[in-house]
């Protein structure tokens, strides 16, 4: 990885630094890489849209096969999926997957121009509905359904900030108190500034290889047991970024498994493991409240009981299933194309027992989940 922060430098610099670190870790040279996949960043002009080739040029044209892909917050997972599929198909032995972003300060904005046919543009134009507004709708809904409180949300931040303070790649490395969270300015009721993840610069990369190649050349590796990238099922009855409305459940009943739970379910099925097998999980804590939703969507507990697990310390470092032991987005902030890759880096670090002070004892199975704009969802499971 490249350390996350607000560095103000080109995204390519972060991605290339992460790529070189991944290659060093794997004991490989750039010229060993047969396939390079870039997760795209839409904020950084044409090089960002063709990030695979942009990274390849920075690293030196090597004639490698190349791909670029964009799936909003699921971009990194889709980049991994593309590389993994190519390896599993026997078309290559070793691939490098890279994601990096350089973000502006403040709210994420839609792509510029006058584009009334784009729901992402329209939600700002007609409603002023930012990403935190959607997170706040979920948070308020959770409060109404389950009696969650602002203190519960603050406790998520306290937990994640403590974990992040132990992670040299995290942007925010200072532990915080619940009082500090509850005193931070309200952004979108009921979420305060410290409940919401920042926008960050950052980069992450991983080397993927076939099992045979890894055994021959690898320097200690983990198994990528599942990459699920799924769409919602109709009718999607939870309001989804950047939609104006849910699907109607008047003619067709809502599916048994809502979108987030379906994302993780698909990964469990593919990996042949279940929630009880997890040693740790990295989830998309775009807001503190959303981490609680994810705990339930992961199957760690029934709906409405995430607060209990949190209060009992079961998701803290040293707990039964640490959630966001990296510090999560609370400590990193969003660097969109890098996020899902960074989650996998944390899983690999933990499964290899290299996480230092934030290490999960005897980590054997890790899951990372996230959700992208317009119904892209992804989850990754890695095992020793």
């Amino acid at each position, binding site marked *: 990885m490249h350390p996350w922060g607000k560095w103000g430098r080109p995204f390519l610099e972060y991605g290339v630094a992460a790529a070189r670190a991944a290659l060093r870790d794997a004991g490989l040279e750039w010229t060993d890489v047969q396939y390079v996949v870039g997760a795209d960043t839409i904020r950084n002009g044409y090089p960002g849209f063709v990030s695979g080739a942009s990274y390849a040029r920075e690293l030196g044209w090597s004639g490698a096969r190349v791909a670029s892909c964009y799936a909003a917050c699921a971009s990194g997972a889709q980049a991994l999926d593309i590389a993994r599929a190519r390896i599993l198909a026997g078309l290559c032995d070793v691939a490098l997957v890279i994601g990096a972003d350089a973000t502006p300060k*403040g709210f994420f*904005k839609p792509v510029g121009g006058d584009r009334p046919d784009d729901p992402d543009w329209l939600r700002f134009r*007609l409603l002023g509905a930012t990403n935190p507004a959607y997170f706040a709708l979920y948070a308020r809904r959770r409060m109404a359904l389950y009696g969650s409180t602002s203190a519960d949300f603050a406790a998520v931040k306290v937990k994640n900030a403590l974990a992040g303070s132990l992670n040299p790649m995290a942007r925010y490395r200072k532990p915080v108190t619940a009082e500090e969270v509850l005193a931070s300015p309200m952004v979108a009721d009921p979420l305060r500034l410290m409940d919401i993840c920042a926008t960050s610069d950052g980069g992450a990369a991983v080397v993927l290889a076939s099992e045979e190649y890894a055994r021959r050349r690898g320097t200690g590796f983990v198994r990528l047991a599942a990459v699920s990238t799924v769409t919602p099922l109709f009718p999607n*009855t939870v309001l989804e970024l950047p939609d104006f409305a*849910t699907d109607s459940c008047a*003619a067709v009943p809502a599916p048994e498994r809502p979108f987030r739970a379906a994302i993780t379910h698909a990964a469990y099925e593919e990996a042949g493991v279940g929630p009880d097998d997890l040693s740790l999980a990295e989830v998309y804590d775009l807001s503190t409240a959303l981490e609680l939703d994810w705990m339930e969507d992961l199957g760690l507990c029934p709906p409405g009981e995430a607060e209990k697990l949190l209060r009992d310390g079961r998701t803290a470092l040293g707990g039964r299933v640490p959630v966001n032991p990296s510090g999560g987005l609370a400590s990193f902030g969003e660097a969109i194309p890098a996020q899902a890759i960074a989650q996998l880096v944390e899983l690999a670090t933990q499964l290899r027992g290299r996480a230092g002070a934030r290490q999960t004892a005897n980590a054997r199975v890790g899951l990372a989940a996230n959700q992208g704009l317009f119904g892209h969802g992804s989850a990754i499971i890695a095992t020793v």
Partner: protein
Amino acid sequence: MTYAIDGWFAISPEDGVHLLGTSCTACGTITFPPRPGSCPNPRCASTDTQVRPLPRRGRVWSYTNACYPPPAPYVAADPYVPVTLAAVELDEVGIVVLGQVKGLTADQLQVGMELELTSGPLADGPLVWMWGRAS
């Protein structure tokens, strides 16, 4: 009257403000925003949809506000007044629709509370649908 977007809502002196959805003539699935063409139900191959007004009332699914001015293309009033947003589950059709809230702050809203559709201007003039106090 200039609408901020065409075809998504209508205002008439007799019936007030209505969101305009589409309904599939084969399976009855209702959609908002209106979706001409194919039905969104993956098990329905119909391409025959009709525009219809949606129920004007519903119950709050969730709500929030924007304490800081949203970025462009939103045009913020000067001085800025926090925007209140509500996601409202429409009666009968089982759709949750997001909209600005007129005349109520986040403190005055509750999940489950009944709201009714109205309209109001964006800061630069055009009208948009909004949720308001149920009459």
